């Protein structure tokens, strides 16, 4: 019998509290997303997260672990939420469920459950969907502006299951997609440099992710190292390319506000299990993800490279940790 009573006092902190704070930080962006694009995202969230928790319970059962403490710790909840906001809100529900399956069952439980997954579950799900269903994944809804109606219609949101009720969805590619297509066609890209007055809905949502992320740093859920290093890295490398050739490459602000940069910086790469534990390691991790993302966005085959950059760097985490171990007190 071990004597597990030292220390006898403990700070009140659990994994659930951490996850709950993350969800709080994600809410403002959700609010804006419903306002601009309708309540479909809520339906996705409901079904997606429900399915994720269901799958998690089955996996735990199969692995002979008690279900309650693990399902209630909120990690599958957050992973599913991040996947759902990374994909277009109007994807068919079956596509989303496939993505969630890969996130929860393959990326998380097949590798040993929470704490043992080497890859970021949300990013694995996204990568699988992007590679398997490229057409669906690149058709994003377009907004007509902020509609308060969308919130009133909330009470009818169950009706989205009824596909007869046509939701007037106008879809198009994200700005990143558009640029990629134009470049592929060899045409010049003439998009105005981004300023705050010309912010489109997606960019406003990205800003809210930024603010939510600052909230997380304030609450000490995450440290500033990862977000700052990713943001600065993307800014720096895209500036290099921008100053080299302004007609082909987009401005740094464009790169920051488009795509999932802020979402990734504060919510995705900061997944504690798949990112390095040492502070120096975190900075290196952020910088390299930024570099790879900029390369993929400009030279790779996919519009947004964050997912692949993250997965690639997840593989390198043990190596990074090995070389960035800090010195112990007294051994300088």
């Amino acid at each position, binding site marked *: 019998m*071990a*004597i*597990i*009573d*030292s*220390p*006898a*006092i*403990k*700070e009140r*902190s*659990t*994994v659930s*509290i*951490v996850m709950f704070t993350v969800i709080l930080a994600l809410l403002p962006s959700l609010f804006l997303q419903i306002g601009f694009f309708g309540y479909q995202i809520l339906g996705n969230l409901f079904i997606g997260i429900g399915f994720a928790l269901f799958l998690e319970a089955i996996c735990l059962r199969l692995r002979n672990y008690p279900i309650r*403490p*693990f399902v209630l*710790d909120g*990690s599958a909840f957050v992973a599913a939420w991040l996947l759902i906001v990374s994909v277009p809100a109007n994807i068919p529900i079956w596509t989303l469920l496939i993505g969630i399956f890969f996130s929860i069952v393959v990326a998380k439980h097949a590798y040993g*459950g*929470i*704490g*043992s997954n080497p890859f970021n579950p949300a990013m694995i799900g996204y990568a699988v969907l992007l590679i398997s269903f490229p057409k669906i994944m690149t058709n994003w809804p377009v907004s007509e502006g902020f509609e308060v109606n969308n919130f009133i219609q909330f009470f009818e949101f169950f009706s989205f299951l009824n596909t007869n009720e046509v939701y007037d969805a106008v879809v198009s590619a994200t700005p990143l997609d558009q640029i990629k297509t134009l470049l592929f066609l060899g045409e010049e890209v003439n998009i105005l440099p981004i300023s705050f007055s010309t912010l489109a809905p997606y960019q406003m949502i990205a800003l809210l992710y930024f603010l939510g992320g600052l909230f997380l740093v304030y609450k000490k859920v995450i440290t500033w190292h990862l977000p700052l290093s990713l943001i600065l890295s993307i800014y720096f490398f895209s500036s290099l390319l921008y100053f080299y050739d302004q007609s082909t490459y987009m401005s740094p602000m464009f790169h920051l506000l488009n795509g999932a940069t802020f979402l990734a910086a504060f919510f995705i790469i900061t997944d*504690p*299990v798949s*990112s390095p*534990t*040492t502070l120096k390691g975190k900075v290196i991790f952020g910088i390299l993800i930024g570099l790879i993302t900029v390369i993929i966005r400009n030279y790779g085959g996919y519009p947004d490279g964050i997912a692949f950059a993250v997965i690639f760097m997840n593989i390198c985490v043990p190596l990074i940790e090995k070389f960035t*171990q*800090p*010195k*112990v*007190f*007294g*051994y*300088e």
Partner: protein
Amino acid sequence: MELTDKIFKFFGGIKPNGHKSISTMNPIKRLPIPKKLIIPVRQHVGKVPNIKVSVGERVLKGQILAEPVANISAATHSSSSGTVIAIESNKIPHPSGLPDLCITIETDGKDEWIKNDKIDRSRLSSEALYEVMKFSGIVGLGGATFPTHIKLNSNKIKTLIVNAAECEPYITCDDMAMQEKTKEFIEGIQITMDILKIPHAIIGIEDNKPKAIEKLKISLSGSKNISIKVVPTIYPSGDEKRLIYLMLGLKISKEKRPVDFGIQVFNVATLISLGRFFYHSEPVISRIVTVTGALKRPNNYEALIGTPIQELIKDAGGSPNQDIIMGGPMMGFKLPHTDVSVTKAMNCLLAMTDDMKSKDTFEMPCIRCTKCVEVCPAQLQPQELYWHAKSKQFEKLTEDYKLFDCIECGCCSYVCPSNIPLVQYYRYAKSEIRDQLKSSEVADIARERNEFRLYRIEREKKERAERNAQRRAQTSDIDKKKLIEEKKAAIAEAMKRIEEKEK
């Protein structure tokens, strides 16, 4: 070592609720002499001292019961006058619950002191002083119980640091000692500096003790070589190496000792005992114990060593079957039995409150959040230590991750959101590694002995063969015949004797 006024800040640490005011409302209490004193023979780090008394003998207060043996050892004294009624194995306050040898004394109520010669420091050389100090029974009374005379056996100490931090929540014995025994405390510091010729002393005290700081500042207003540095209240500023860093900005790892840098750190109670020993020739026979927690009347008690703790708990308004922690809530351990007695290491008896009794001892998986890294005062990687200890891979722990630099302060377990008992894993790993080292040393000796034995047998065989060969070579053929004839004659004579006997 340059002394600056600067106070440094160490990495990590936590700020738990202090709960100090509940036990500092009343002065230190002294209970009447208990009927029985159960004094463990060994109350220090090191070897068991030699018992010098026998059952039935009458002993006086302050009489030596056990003398230190060579190397790391300390003396044990009787806390009151009475008769030794037993020297046997008894329950002691230890996390294992295993018993140890104790001397039980039935007190006669007279509390008669033994006559000790006054120590004339001016006439004793430092070697002689060291010999005298060996028998003082003074050990580190902050809880470490390392024999103090060994720490004082050096003439290279330039700075004396007084550990008045008392960083652990609930414990207030040093605080009250500094408030009520200010003069004795300062005398203790001065005499220690005097004997060892230490030029400077710094008192490191946390800012949650305003009354004690006030009193000390007044008493030390004229002193040139004793200064006070007030540090912010962060746990664990009272750890020896953290305190040295706070005071002097010097980082010392596990591989070195403070004495190598000309520094020595002593606890408040230890210095008070040193003062009493050198001025009044009194050995350690009592200590101040904070009895606090879930009791009606938490208080500090000046208790005789060997007092059954139930007497203290009862006076403080507790019940006999409460769970009691010996020490503070961070580094203390739950006493497996509470019918034990006060020892030199017992600085606090903490009756467990409801929030201390862990309701959910679920150990969830580690999510690598690195909150533990942020608070570790030794700047270790607690999660790496945890994974290696948990999977029993002990090879990398000592060298690569510096497990033995861990001071087991508990900051990491305090913040872990997955409720992992990190300190328990480190203690287990340290035990196992020490045990493995010991086993391999024993195995090496056994291997040597075995090899020597095989060599010895070979050698004996060779020697015997040589001797035989020599003997055979020496005797020539003629001599051989002569030998044979002589032997035949001897046998014939023996046969004749036997025949005659039979007749």
